């Protein structure tokens, strides 16, 4: 991880010096452990702040929307897929970008660590062989990284960037024999009542803070449907129906675009796994249209094209 960080710093400095980019978007250490924050590097000194470790889960593609300058961006697999999305949706030009690709080994889910640690987490360190040591107010504890990884990372199919100008390291081995949609299938198998109860329970803690929307690189509308008041599409209350409608519609806006980067779940202050909704749509897109979002800048999205063999079983 140190080697990644050093390489990123080196590349950032070189790009700024050569004027290949006016700004480098990357991560720096946050004010508390496990919370790296995005940073916008414009000078040589700022480039020294750049880091890379297992807490860089935020999707940096979110910061590219409608920018004018030349930007270098640090991108792991899912970020790069969202950058592809942005290019396909004309939110940024490929020519403006210099993509610093990072082969990703998964991001740590801070909730998993916090749940198993007593006292405040003071420091967290990791070794190259996947051991994570947490120093808390009550002592020290070591985890194996694979046990505390984000759920979406554990079923990730694209750890390496799909689009890049330069890689900081050799590509990592991707997972091949995993069932991406096991949780969706389990839910599909439930009865109507069970499904309803599942979502009642899942979404009950939602406080409608819209952090999931804000963290999502797909959500770039100038005015989101939830904020509009004329017409008001959606009630603003804590009623379970309003909450369900919000999550349902938000997921729908991501249909055929979601890369399952996990930014929404990561940002949620109450830890709702709203990814189950977007995952269902991802699964349908894969089953019906053989489509996965953000894999190539040459293909049009599934819901953007008409083909005579499009499935139409649902139409009478």
């Amino acid at each position, binding site marked *: 991880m140190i080697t990644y960080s050093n390489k990123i710093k080196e590349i950032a400095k070189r790009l700024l010096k050569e004027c290949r980019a006016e700004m480098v978007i990357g991560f720096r250490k946050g004010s508390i452990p496990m919370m790296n924050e995005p940073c916008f590097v414009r000078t040589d000194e700022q480039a020294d702040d750049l880091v890379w470790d297992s807490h860089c889960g935020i999707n940096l593609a979110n910061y590219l929307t409608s920018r004018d300058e030349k930007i270098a961006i640090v991108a792991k697999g899912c970020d790069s897929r969202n950058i592809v999305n942005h290019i396909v949706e004309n939110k940024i030009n490929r020519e403006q970008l210099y993509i610093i690709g990072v082969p990703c080994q998964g991001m740590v889910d801070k909730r998993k660590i916090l749940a198993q640690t007593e006292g405040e987490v003071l420091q967290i360190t990791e070794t190259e062989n996947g051991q994570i040591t947490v120093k808390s107010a009550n002592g020290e504890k070591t985890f194996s990284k694979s046990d505390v990884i984000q759920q979406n990372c554990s079923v990730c199919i694209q750890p390496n960037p799909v689009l890049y100008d330069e890689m900081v390291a050799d590509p990592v081995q991707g997972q091949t024999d995993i069932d991406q949609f096991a949780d969706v299938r389990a839910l*599909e198998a439930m009865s*109507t009542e069970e*499904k*309803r109860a599942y979502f009642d329970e899942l979404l009950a803690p939602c406080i409608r803070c819209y952090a999931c929307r804000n963290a999502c690189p797909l959500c770039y509308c100038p005015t989101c449907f939830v904020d509009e008041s004329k017409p008001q599409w959606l009630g603003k209350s804590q009623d379970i*129906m309003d909450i369900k409608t919000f999550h*349902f519609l938000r997921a729908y806006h991501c249909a055929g675009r979601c890369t399952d980067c996990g930014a929404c779940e990561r940002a949620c202050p109450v830890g709702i796994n709203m990814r189950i909704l977007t995952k*269902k749509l991802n699964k349908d897109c894969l089953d019906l249209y053989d489509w996965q979002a953000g894999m190539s800048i040459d293909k049009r999205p599934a819901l953007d094209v008409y083909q005579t063999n499009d499935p139409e079983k649902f*139409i*009478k």
Partner: protein
Amino acid sequence: MKNLLELMGVEPDRIHFSWISSAESTKFVQVVNEIAEKVKALGPNRHFVKQEAKVA
């Protein structure tokens, strides 16, 4: 759309899609009757309804 609604617990028979030309009056009647029958069998939708705010 139908798939996700079903996933969230809306009964499959409550949602129907159809493409009917303005010239296809018979098909229209047939589809509407069919839908009405299926929805009647399910009864009123009491689950996906927003309760009125309680005013003290």
